[in-house]
Structures are given as C-alpha cells and as structure tokens.
C-alpha cells in the first residue's frame, strides 16, 4: 500500500534578479492507494500533479510530509522502494544509442536480476508488447509508438508492484495512448497499484478506481468517479471539476 501523508512541496522562484518568492506546488496532500487500484491524479496544467508524482517516485524531496510504500519510507529505504516502483512520464526519454534489448538488459541488471532471468523476461515482454521486430534496433531509430512500447517494457522488466505514470498518454496518437491504457488495465488485473496523472478527464473516468482532483497544489475533491459526479451533481468529471473551481475565467 502507498500512503501519502500531508505531502508538501515549496519552491522558490525569482520575479527578477533580486526579488524572489516562495510558492507551494503541492500543499498537504494526503491519500492512500491499495493493491490493485488505479488512482487518478487529475487537474489542469500547473496544478501540481507532476511535482506530486515526482516526490512519490523519489526524484523530488518533499518540503514536508511523508510517503511510504508497504511501510517503508524514502529516508531509510530509498533503494528498496525504488526497486518496487516503475516511473513513466510523458517526458521520459530513453537512450537513443542503445538498442531495446540493451536497455532492457541494463534495467534488469540495475534491478538486481540474474542474467538468465533477464533474458527470459525480455522474451516475455517482447511477446506481450510485440517488440520482436525492433528488439535489436537502436532506440533512436524507432517510431514514437515503438519508443512508447519500449518505455513500457522498461517499466515491466523487474515486475514492479507500483506504477507511477505521469501524463503518460499526453501528446501521443490514439494508438500509442491506447497501448498505455491497455497496459494499465492488464497490470491492475495482476494486482498492481497504479498512480496515474492526467488532464484528460474522460480517460481517467473510464479507467480509474478512485480520483484525486488537484488545483493550485491542493486537493479539491477525492473519491470514485461515481461519488464525485454525485457530490457535484454532474454527469462527467470535466463538469465536476469546473463546478468545484467555480467555472473558468480567462485570467486563470
């Protein structure tokens, strides 16, 4: 289980060369994710979704609050936690000069897998994601869809317990984004926990068990899509979001 408790991240930004100001990217965010759940982190651009998931993935250090995976915290068990998770974002880039096979082998090695198990796993993943055709091609020569499959393969190699997916479908064509959505459904069936951020409300409504809506770094609502729609008396999450933030203005 993932437990996020009052997670806060404060940044400093410079207005000009001398003046600076502090602002909260995320403020006291609390939730938990159980095994086999897909949790959607929803909100517009700049809401604080990426910062939240980066803290959960151990890339950013929280200003306040705590994160635990199966009772382990980052301060004492960073390597152990990172072995349990896979992080994939819309911005995740791969090494162009390596082949898919070399990348997957490197990842397996990093996660402490034995060589024969890595080989077996690479073949399994290649079957699942239909990668045999380009397994030995350099990543720099692959199409966007193929690269996205390699990215997913990279996450699957060590069979993680938790997936952290930050806007993983943003900017992808319909086929590539469907690959990711199918992958999430399959992993959920295996009992994996997925934290998934997006600003595509319809996508989240279809796939997520529970949703956490964030705006300006704060949770504005949390619950199942059905609960949120009932609470806001709307028919979809998009309308629910706008209702909660009191409509939209050009100034925002």
């Amino acid at each position, binding site marked *: 289980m993932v437990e996020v408790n009052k997670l806060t991240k404060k940044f400093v930004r*410079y207005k000009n060369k001398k003046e600076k100001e502090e602002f909260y990217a995320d403020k006291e965010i609390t939730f938990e994710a159980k095994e086999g759940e897909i949790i959607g982190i929803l909100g517009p651009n700049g809401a604080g979704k990426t910062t939240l998931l980066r803290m959960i*993935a*151990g*890339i*950013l*250090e929280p200003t306040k609050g705590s994160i635990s995976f199966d009772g382990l915290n980052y301060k004492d068990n*960073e*390597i*152990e936690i*990172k*072995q349990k*998770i*896979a*992080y994939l*974002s819309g*911005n*995740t*880039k*791969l*090494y*162009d*000069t*390596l082949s898919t096979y*070399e990348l997957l082998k*490197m*990842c397996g*090695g*990093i*996660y*402490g897998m034995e060589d024969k198990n890595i080989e077996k796993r690479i073949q399994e993943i290649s079957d699942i994601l239909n990668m045999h055709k380009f397994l030995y091609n*350099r990543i720099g020569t692959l199409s966007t869809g193929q690269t996205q499959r390699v990215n997913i393969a*990279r996450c699957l190699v060590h069979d993680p317990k938790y997936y952290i997916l930050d806007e993983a479908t943003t900017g992808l064509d319909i086929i590539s984004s469907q690959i990711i959505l199918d992958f999430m459904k399959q992993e959920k069936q295996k009992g994996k926990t997925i934290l998934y951020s997006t600003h595509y409300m319809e996508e989240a409504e279809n796939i997520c068990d529970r949703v956490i809506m964030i705006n300006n770094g704060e949770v504005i609502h949390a619950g199942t899509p059905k609960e949120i729609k009932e609470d806001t008396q709307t028919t979809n999450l998009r309308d629910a979001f706008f209702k909660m933030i009191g409509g939209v203005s050009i100034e925002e």
Partner: protein
Amino acid sequence: MKSNLWNILKKELRELFRDKKSLAMMLIIPIFIPLLVIGMSALFEAQVSKDVEEYNKIGFAYEMTDVEKNIAKEMNIEIINGNEEELKQQYDDGDIDLYITKDGNKYIINTDGSDTSTYSSSLMETYFNTYKQYLQQNYLQENNLNPDEVLNIITVEENMIEQDNYFANYIKNYAFLFIMMAITVSATYPATDTTAGERERGTLETLLTFPIKSKDIIIGKFLGVTISSIITGVISLVLAIISLIVTKNMFSIYEGIDTMFSPITIVFAVIVIIVYSFFISGLCISIASTSKTFKEAQSALTPLTFISFFPGMIAFMMGITTTPILSIIPFINFTLIFTDINNGTIDILNIVLMAVSTIIYISIVFAYIIKQYKSEKVLFTK
C-alpha cells in the same frame, strides 16, 4: 543489493563509443600531435639551418684590399660597394643585410639586431677574425717571429662529454604538453554530454528513478570519461613517439641526437597520463554537472583547455624545476614531472605527491558532486 557501478559504466561506455562526436574527440584530436611535432621541428630547422645566401649581402663603405675580397669570396659574402649614405639607404630598403664602415683601423658593423642581421653579424665576425689572423701572421713574419709559437701560445680544445639534446628535449616536453591539452579537449565533450547533455535529453530523470545510489551514477560517469581520456592520451603518446621517429629522419637538427622516449620514460609518461586523465575528468564532470545546459557547460569548460597548457608552458620558459610543493599544484605538476622523467631525473617522492594530491582533489570534488546528485538540484537546476 550489489553495486550498480558496472551497469552504469557499461551504459556510459556504450553511449560514448556509439556517439560520433565523442569518438571524434577521442580519436581525431591526437592526430594534431604529429602535425605539431613536425611543425615545430620544421620551425627549428628553418631558424637553425638558415642558408648563407639569405644573409650574405654585405655593404662595404671603403675600398677593400685583394686579401679582404678573397676572404669574402671564400666565405660566400656578396660584396656591395658604396659610400656610407648609399649603403644606409640600401640597408633601409632591405637590399643589403648590413654594412661596414671604417675609421682608421676600426671597423664598424652597422646593424639593427634583427634575426637576419644577427646571422650577418655572426658571419662578419668570422670574416674579421680571419682577416685579423692574416694580418697578425704577416706582422709576426715581417718581424722574424714564428706565428705558430705566438698565436698558439695556449691551445683550447672542447671535449663534448654528451651531445646537447636541446631540440629533442624541447620538442618532447612540448609534445607532452600537447598530449595534456588533447586529453583536456577530449574529456570536455563526454563530460558535458554525460551530465548536462543527459539532463537536457531528459534521460537523467529516468536514471534517477532507478534504484541506484548517486555515488554509483557519478563514479560510473566519471570512469567512463576517464577511460575515454586515457585512450586519447595513449593514442597521442603513440603518435608523438612515431612522429619523433619520423622527424629524426626528416630534419638535420636532430642529427646525432636521440629523439626517442626511453622505455622508462614511456612507462612513467603513461602513469602521468592516467593520473591526469582521472584529474581532468573529475574536474570536467564537476563543472559540467553544475551547468544548466549543454551550451553553458561547454562555455564553462573551454578555459580548462588553456589552463591545462599555459602553466606548463610558462614553467618551461622560466626554467622552473619540480619541487615537492609544485608537485601538488594541479596542472603544473603533471608537466614538470614529465619534464623530470624526460630528463632522466625521476624523483619518486614528487610522483607520489602528484598522485596523492590528485586523489585528494578528486575526492573533494566527488564529495560535492555526489551530494549534488542526491538532491533535486541536479535535475531541476535553475
């Protein structure tokens, strides 16, 4: 969990050897070493072996005797006669290399101290010594004295214990400076690419999500750059040795001189190259990892190329020799110790001090970078 250092190093080396720019830096930069060695040899040759016809046009502002004319002819001196004013004008116009005026028994060599005039002056000093010897012999014979007994009252003979190795040492020392510069230039690109470049490409974020200690990431990157620097250094050394063998047969200034590095010099040169590669790679990575962009890192690293070269060059010019204190001063220590090795004055203490001080500097730099890689600053530097 076992260390991931080997996985990171393998990744770094794969990227390094598959990147055309990194390969070019590693393998093409050493090609400049033979060009520099041959170029410098040609320059020395041109300075030392100047043809007499390039500086033999001498103006004489007086009537020469037949004896003087014969000596001048034998010495291949081209005589230009005229009065002082005419000769001065010709000298100013560059038509003659210098001119001689005479006041009684006093001969004056008129010159401006330029390179050509120095050669001409030297030629004329030999000419006047020959003429003076002729006059002295004549005078002694006229006074019934044996010239051999008077002129050779003492004899001086030079016994050359060891042939001067000036050019060979000079070229070898500069060749080593060029090797250091080549190592520096070749280290800057992969160091930039593996830090600021990896951040800019977005792959560093991926790397930081892996269960890898920041120490392993940094040391893996550092070793990758160091290996590439050592390869450049060793290729440069091999090319320097080959070019010294070639230049020995091409230029007369090396006649009778041993231009080869001795086996012990080669062994120690490789040691200095390895230590320097560790040092410069650590320094490049530390500077590049604090830069926001690839371009900024490249700009920050450019001065290193000059810093790697100038202290050594100044030390050569000033004739500075190695001391224990200088052995711990970065950059200058590597060149001075190599000069010692080349001159056959190997001092193990200085070599140990160089190696130990380099390890200390790298450790300090690494403590700082590893701390950087633990924090988010390395990813989101602003």
